[in-house]
């Protein structure tokens, strides 16, 4: 039985981890190009958090507003967004994320689409969870090439929230607000502390609570692969079909 439940795709594992971070009654936003957080939040709604207000950009079912994506943006700016998910081409030790360029800003090796609201959402959502399917030394770096949104700001800056966790296929990192850096919080099934450190471009302290991530339960996987997969197919058809296995 346990063999069967631990065999899942990295995307399924991450969706399950996201679902465990959701608290009932929260207002939760899922931005563009974020199928894994979308899957995780729908899973949480099905299993344990039936009263969440879920806003998924690109969805008709999970979109409670009369206008466009500015609605989510301004809701967050009012301080009414509890949880949001961000990613980056690079993320660094001090919680900075980069969505702009690789290399020098003026003559970059690669130019990316840019902040897309993250330079406000990272400050104004109460909790932000970062995610990346690639856990490597080129994604987790000592210092990002360009700070699109900052992990740390001085006291003179109004901030509702900020970084709380990073979720990858290998690990969960948690934010140490006092030290202003990430610590290893949980080791995912199939990974080890050594493997995670070897693939992270900065030294990771172990959080005092460090643990093994409990593998997805049979219930989590079966709901993910049925109800959630079906709902997700209306928003992210290609992702739902290829990354979430049919039950």
């Amino acid at each position: 039985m346990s063999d069967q439940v631990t065999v899942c795709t990295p995307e399924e594992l991450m969706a399950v981890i996201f679902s465990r971070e959701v608290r009932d009654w929260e207002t939760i936003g899922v931005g563009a190009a974020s199928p894994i957080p979308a899957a995780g939040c729908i899973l949480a709604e099905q299993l344990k958090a039936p009263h969440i207000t879920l806003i998924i950009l690109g969805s008709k079912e999970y979109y409670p507003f009369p206008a466009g994506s500015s609605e989510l943006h301004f809701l967050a700016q009012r301080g009414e967004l509890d949880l949001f998910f961000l990613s980056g081409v690079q993320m660094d030790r001090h919680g900075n994320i980069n969505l702009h360029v690789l290399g020098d800003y003026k003559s970059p090796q690669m130019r990316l689409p840019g902040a897309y609201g993250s330079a406000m959402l990272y400050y104004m959502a109460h909790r932000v969870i970062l995610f990346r399917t690639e856990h490597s030394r080129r994604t987790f770096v000592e210092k990002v090439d360009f700070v699109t949104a900052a992990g740390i700001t001085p006291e003179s800056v109004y901030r509702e929230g900020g970084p709380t966790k990073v979720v990858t296929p290998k690990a969960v990192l948690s934010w140490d607000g006092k030290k202003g850096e990430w610590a290893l919080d949980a080791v995912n099934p199939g990974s080890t502390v050594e493997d995670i450190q070897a693939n992270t471009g900065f030294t990771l302290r172990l959080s005092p609570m460090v643990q093994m991530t409990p593998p997805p339960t049979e219930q989590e996987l079966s709901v993910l692969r049925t109800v959630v997969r079906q709902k997700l197919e209306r928003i992210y058809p290609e992702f739902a079909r290829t990354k979430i296995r049919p039950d």
Partner: protein
Amino acid sequence: MYSMVQAGSMGLPFVAVRGLMGTDILKNRPDLKVIADPFHPMEKVVAAQPIRPDVAVFHALKADRFGNSITPGLRDDLMMARAARRAVVTAEELTDKELTMRDAPNDTFLPAIDVDVVVQVPWGAHPCSCGLLYGLDDAHLREYVQAAQEEKTFKNYLERYVAGVKNHQEYLQRVGVMNLLPAEKINV
């Protein structure tokens, strides 16, 4: 960015925005400046210049002769149309019937007062989608992504689909868009 467009739509001199502090965005954008919050002088905020584009272009499902237009889905088009000095609508269909908000229960309505120009352009969103009328042209998008990898192939792409066609009709023939949907759906 939304705030800056909204400020443009409201005719404001500038707008205060949250976040952005400590980023490299501030180092590279002359239209964003850190100021002391005049009402809470201990706090620093970013003041942003409004965005007022010269022209904004929207693609609509339908438009009427007055400029009333319906764009697909729920969008921020009204804010953008107002921020722009001129708003141009290209539409799949021009109708003789005067359109109102009631014709767009699940879509976005742009009132004539905020629209300056209407042009009929069937398949005007290609290779992107247009509401329920037609979906993404995946094959064409893949061709574009492939071509955009290198300067030379990208130039060839532009020559074939942009510079080298006389008009929109010829573009449609070249991309083969008429083959995308069954014939009965073409005369929308």
